[in-house]
């Protein structure tokens, strides 16, 4: 029988099935400070040890400051949470990429850049954007804390097999249109709940032409359609990216791995439970207007009169926007560039390239938070930090930062922030904060202009 990439990955990790539930073996478990303490406490309460600590890697990212990371954390609760992670890792022999560690960063950035994320693996993390790793042709999805505890206890998860959907995007993207626009477009077409119950494979010439980093942005936001995860078939680009990374297989193992990886792409004729098709030519730079990522539109459009979403009216009140209003030209106050969606080196390069020699608008606060220490160091080595500083942007140290506003990086109430992150929920970036999701390029242009603009008019 012809199998999809998803089927191959799922079946190769199936320990057994029982009553419609599958026991799935987990190859890599990434953990962070927010969703792991209760799971550690849980196994301790049961009096058991981690089944396989060598398959677990930890990093504090959600709740860490992005300034002065060499100093003790000043917020006592955050400090306690990070210290709890350190203690748990020490006690249970889990490797940790701590603050200041050369491999520290947002959990979904450090997996790929260190070669921990690879085709053919099953990977989980107590964080919904674990879907990011699927860009490498692995089975990657977010789990809750009870499931973190399950993996701690047994290196397995009890799961219902999700349905499969293939989203095919064909054609060449026009200038100024990026992978972020592609995924925001897809979500706006399928809605914030449109992918529920599915594992999505992205395919087509548009996806194939993308860099690994751009592919990660696509898979990252699968969850914003409610999908269980996203994935892209591994190809030569995937192998080139992984070759010689710290944790990548070496020598004979590498060759064997590539031979295996080449068997993974969906067979011709494999059946998906659902198929959706889009054309690159229909995709323009995107922005969101509402309070879920499905409420997006292209920059040339006006806020719709109606949306098939009962939260629509309420979201416009929260955003202080009107039906029929055009957002192009609207003044904003903040720009946030970062997160596991767009905090990689290519994103920073795209921003630097645009802002070089330009000045941010005076009233704008513009913050750039690299996704990892490696991204930060690369940016500095390439001189991007100087470009950012000269343009009035602040380059911080790595972490989730204003993506979820758990640390002190928050957007004040009622102010607008054009953000490269993935969620525009009420209060996500701070109580009352109004988030407009966009690509790094659109965010850079907004910072320079001081308002929402169509980046295509400036490049």
């Amino acid at each position, binding site marked *: 029988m012809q199998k999809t990439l998803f089927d191959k990955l799922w079946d190769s990790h199936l*320990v057994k099935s029982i*009553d*419609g*539930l599958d*026991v799935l*073996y987990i*190859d890599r478990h990434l953990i962070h400070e927010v*969703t792991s*303490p209760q799971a550690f*406490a849980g196994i301790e309460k*049961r009096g058991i040890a981690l*089944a*396989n600590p060598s398959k677990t890697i930890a990093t504090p990212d*959600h*709740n860490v400051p992005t300034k002065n990371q060499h100093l003790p954390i000043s917020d006592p609760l*955050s400090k*306690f*949470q990070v210290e*709890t992670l350190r203690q748990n890792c020490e006690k249970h022999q889990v490797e940790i990429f701590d603050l200041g560690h050369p491999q520290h960063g947002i959990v979904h950035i450090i997996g790929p850049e260190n070669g921990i994320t*690879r085709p053919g*693996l099953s990977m989980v993390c*107590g*964080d919904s954007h674990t879907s990011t790793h699927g860009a490498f042709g692995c089975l990657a999805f*977010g*789990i*809750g*804390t*009870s*499931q973190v505890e*399950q993996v701690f*206890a*047994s*290196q*397995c998860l*009890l799961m*219902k097999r999700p349905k499969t959907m293939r989203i095919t995007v064909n054609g060449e993207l026009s200038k100024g249109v990026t992978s972020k626009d592609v995924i925001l477009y897809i979500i706006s077409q399928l809605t*914030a*709940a449109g992918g*529920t*119950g599915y594992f999505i494979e992205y395919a087509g010439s548009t996806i194939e032409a993308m860099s690994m980093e751009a592919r990660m942005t696509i898979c990252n936001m699968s969850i914003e359609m*409610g999908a269980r995860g996203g994935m892209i078939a591994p190809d030569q680009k995937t192998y080139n990216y992984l070759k010689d990374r710290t944790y990548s*297989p070496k020598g004979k*193992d*590498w060759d*064997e*791995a590539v031979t*295996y990886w080449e068997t993974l792409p969906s067979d011709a004729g494999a059946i998906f439970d659902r198929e959706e098709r889009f054309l690159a030519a229909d995709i323009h730079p995107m922005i969101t207007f509402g309070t*879920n990522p499905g409420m997006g539109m292209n920059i040339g459009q006006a806020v719709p009169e109606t949306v098939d979403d*009962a*939260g629509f009216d*309420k979201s416009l009140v929260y955003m202080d926007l009107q039906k029929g209003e055009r957002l192009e030209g609207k003044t904003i106050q903040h720009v946030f560039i970062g997160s596991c969606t767009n905090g990689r080196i290519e994103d920073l390069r795209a921003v630097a390239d645009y802002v070089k020699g330009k000045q941010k608008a005076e009233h704008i606060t513009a913050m750039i938070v690299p996704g990892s220490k490696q991204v930060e160091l690369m940016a500095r080595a390439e001189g991007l930090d100087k470009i950012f500083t000269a343009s009035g942007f602040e380059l911080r140290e790595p972490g989730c930062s204003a993506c*979820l*506003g*758990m640390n002190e990086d928050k957007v004040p109430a009622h102010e607008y922030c054009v953000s490269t992150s993935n*969620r525009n*929920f*009420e*209060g*996500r970036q701070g*109580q009352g904060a109004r988030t407009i999701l966009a690509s790094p390029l659109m965010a850079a242009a907004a910072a320079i202009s001081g308002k929402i603009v169509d980046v295509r008019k400036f490049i």
Partner: protein
Amino acid sequence: MDIFTQITSRAVPLHIEDVDTDQIIPARFLKATTREGFGENLFRDWRYKKDEILNADFVLNNPLYSGEILVAGHNFGCGSSREHAAWAISDFGFKVVVSSFFADIFKGNALNTGLLPVQLETQQLAIVFEHMSKDPDTEFIVDIETQTFKIKNTDHSFSFEISKYKKECFQNGFDDIDFLLSLKDEIKSFEAKIPAFL
């Protein structure tokens, strides 16, 4: 997990769709390292106005409504995978959440932590909301064995889905970890066969 077979209770109507996990428990309250105490901040930004004054318009502050059942609009629990959302709802005192649709991860988290998600059809949910708005004292009977959600003193009895396995978990008060630990040997022999290059 506690044993759960049947409850009879009044309910709280949360007539809002797409309630996301950032509303259920805002990120700034995720700093705790234990499971307890999240109920205090359930729907924090809806329950309180900016200056920490109780928002009288929000249903959890409406003295007319109380109970162990939360009835919510379509696509409840979307957003992040934080299990804290399920804990917060349980910790507040709810044992059952009713909706016409649950976000995937939330549903799994709820089932794993002993909070029963009851998914009804859209029209059935409308009937439930209608009864609650007419009479806030309406009682409901949730029965795991028969998989039914009844509006007390009416003919309305709606069935809901729950897997055989999860049903046994609720009825016996055991969870997935107890089950997985019983498979230790099978897991070990699976693990032994994983090739080195992976």
